[in-house]
């Protein structure tokens, strides 16, 4: 019985792959029919996977060998160095990220979004990093392109006492909340942001909690903040 069923499903799927969906739709038993549909989907998925794999191989064969083992970071960083030679910090960049100066970040981000070679249409994350009490703060952007399916990480560092970075909220709309969160936690000011205020903490909060030199405030609206119930440990 089961052997028969499997045979039936296999045949129906083969027919359906050739374009004859009736073979599946005509199966009487509901369970068998849905099993057949499931295996059809699976078969189709495997087929497309093979196709993309072969096409990827073809692509990389067509392009030069040197390009093949480059990460998209290096590729994009070459593009950027051509366009904005003064703004890219080559020494600090690596295979995994591109370090740039804050000054022209707005122009660069617009270029990254619109240039046909990069087309980074989605800003996936903005992270703030505190590199230690003696050093700088850093903002990291993760960009991804839906068209080219490549991704880069951009890093911008700024001094702790004058933490200012141009806002990209007008380029990628999602940047609005990302930047507000980074501002909330690190006090990095995003210049040009249209509504830069705290997003998670209350607006009258003191200090930037994720900075290394943050000190917990003693009271908040008359409520004692640090742990007070001594002897509980």
């Amino acid at each position, binding site marked *: 019985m089961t052997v028969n069923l499997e045979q039936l499903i296999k045949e129906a799927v083969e027919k359906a792959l050739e374009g004859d969906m009736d073979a599946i739709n005509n199966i009487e038993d509901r369970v068998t029919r849905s099993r057949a549909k499931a295996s059809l989907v699976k078969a189709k998925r495997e087929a497309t996977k093979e196709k993309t794999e072969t096409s990827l191989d073809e692509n990389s064969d067509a392009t030069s060998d040197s390009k093949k083992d480059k990460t998209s970071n290096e590729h994009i960083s070459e593009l950027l160095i051509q366009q904005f030679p003064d703004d890219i910090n080559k020494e600090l960049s690596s295979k995994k990220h591109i370090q740039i100066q804050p000054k022209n970040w707005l122009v660069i981000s617009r270029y990254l979004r619109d240039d046909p070679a990069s087309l980074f249409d989605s800003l996936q994350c903005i992270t703030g990093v505190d590199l230690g009490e003696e050093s700088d703060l850093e903002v990291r952007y993760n960009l991804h392109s839906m068209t080219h399916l490549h991704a880069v990480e951009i890093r911008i560092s700024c001094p702790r006492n004058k933490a200012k970075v141009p806002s990209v909220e007008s380029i990628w709309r999602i940047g609005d909340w990302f930047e507000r969160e980074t501002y909330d936690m690190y006090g990095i000011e995003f210049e040009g942001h249209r509504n830069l205020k705290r997003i998670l*903490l*209350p607006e009258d909060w003191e200090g930037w*909690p994720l900075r290394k030199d*943050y000190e*917990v405030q003693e009271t*908040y*609206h008359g*409520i*004692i*903040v*640090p*742990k*007070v*119930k001594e002897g*509980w440990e």
Partner: protein
Amino acid sequence: MGVFENKFQDNIVVASLDKLIGWARSTSPWFFQFGLACCAIEMMATAASRHDLMRIGMIPRSSPRQADVMIVAGTVTLKMALRVKKLYEQMANPKYVISMGSCATSGGPYWQHGYHVLKGVDLVVPVDVYVPGCPPRPEALIEGLLKLQEKIQSERPLTRKTA
């Protein structure tokens, strides 16, 4: 009188009014429905059909005006603490507070380093029953609610307090 009609002779119930009030209050402590973190899920499970808070007379109310008990279920952040306090003040007397979970009791996992967490909801509102656990099982919460009922029942609202 429905089903009871003509079944009984005329009746008189004799009780002390104090106890009667305590009984009435303790068997219908409607609770204020709001959750702050993971503990709230467990509170919802307690109120849902498996554990069924209705059988001890508890119905969730969405307005502080209609509620007698506030179950503080979850992490009270400092931002929320002000609101919790305000909500407590909006409730009508007599009102009771249950602190559910270690977060509401002492700050829980945020005890040491949680810069934004209130170290115990009893810093802003008076708490009647503490239910430990992270999160407490529904059975534990029910135990706490029964304890609260005992407490309400033992109150004597009409007796004059002597020093």
